[in-house]
């Protein structure tokens, strides 16, 4: 079974530039998550999709971050403009559903450095 695919693996940008990350979840997984993991911290949920609808985006800085999941499969996360504090690993995860007993499968992540 193929895992969660993310690209790019690494990205270095200057502050105020924009950047986009792509995620392809495991086939058949209805739920997709984007997490931000700052060095030394646990993953912080940015946004959660159920199929192509947003379930939770309460911790997404909406003035600069946006995400979409067209057709309920692939997803993109965009930052515009980036700030220094956005330097982190951005993890995409997917699960079969939101229900009980569904584990999340994580991708390798995109390590973003903002200089």
């Amino acid at each position, binding site marked *: 079974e193929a895992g969660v695919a993310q690209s790019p693996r690494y990205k270095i940008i200057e502050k105020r530039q924009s950047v986009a990350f792509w995620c392809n979840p495991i086939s058949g997984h209805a739920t997709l998550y984007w997490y931000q993991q700052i060095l030394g911290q*646990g993953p*912080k*949920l940015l946004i959660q999709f159920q199929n192509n609808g947003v379930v*939770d985006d309460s911790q997404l800085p909406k003035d600069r971050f946006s995400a979409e999941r067209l057709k309920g499969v692939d997803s993109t996360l965009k930052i515009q403009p980036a700030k220094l504090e956005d330097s982190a690993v951005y993890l995409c995860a997917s*699960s079969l559903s*939101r229900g*009980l007993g569904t584990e999340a499968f*994580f991708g*390798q992540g995109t390590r973003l450095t903002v200089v």
Partner: protein
Amino acid sequence: GQQVMQIPQYQHVQEGEDFTTYCNSSTTLSNIQWYKQRPGGHPVFLIQLVKSGEVKKQKRLTFQFGEAKKNSSLHITATQTTDVGTYFCAGTTTDSWGKFQFGAGTQVVVTP
């Protein structure tokens, strides 16, 4: 809002020793998951606990969910170098169904 705290933040263990890491929630959880993240890697699911007082074992790892469903623990016996990594707990509540709040993790270092 819901907060999940893990202690200790760091755990240095001699190979062969046992240790326990703890996870405490400010609110009652509906279920809790544990993940392991190797250095430079991504979180990998270990287990999910649902019932009050539940205990599950995976070889040398023992997971427990508290009676009040506000805390959990992971106990590792006879630690091996392969146990190196950061262990995260992640909890969800009935009013935030499917939204898991991760703790800051316990970073485990094993010395031979």
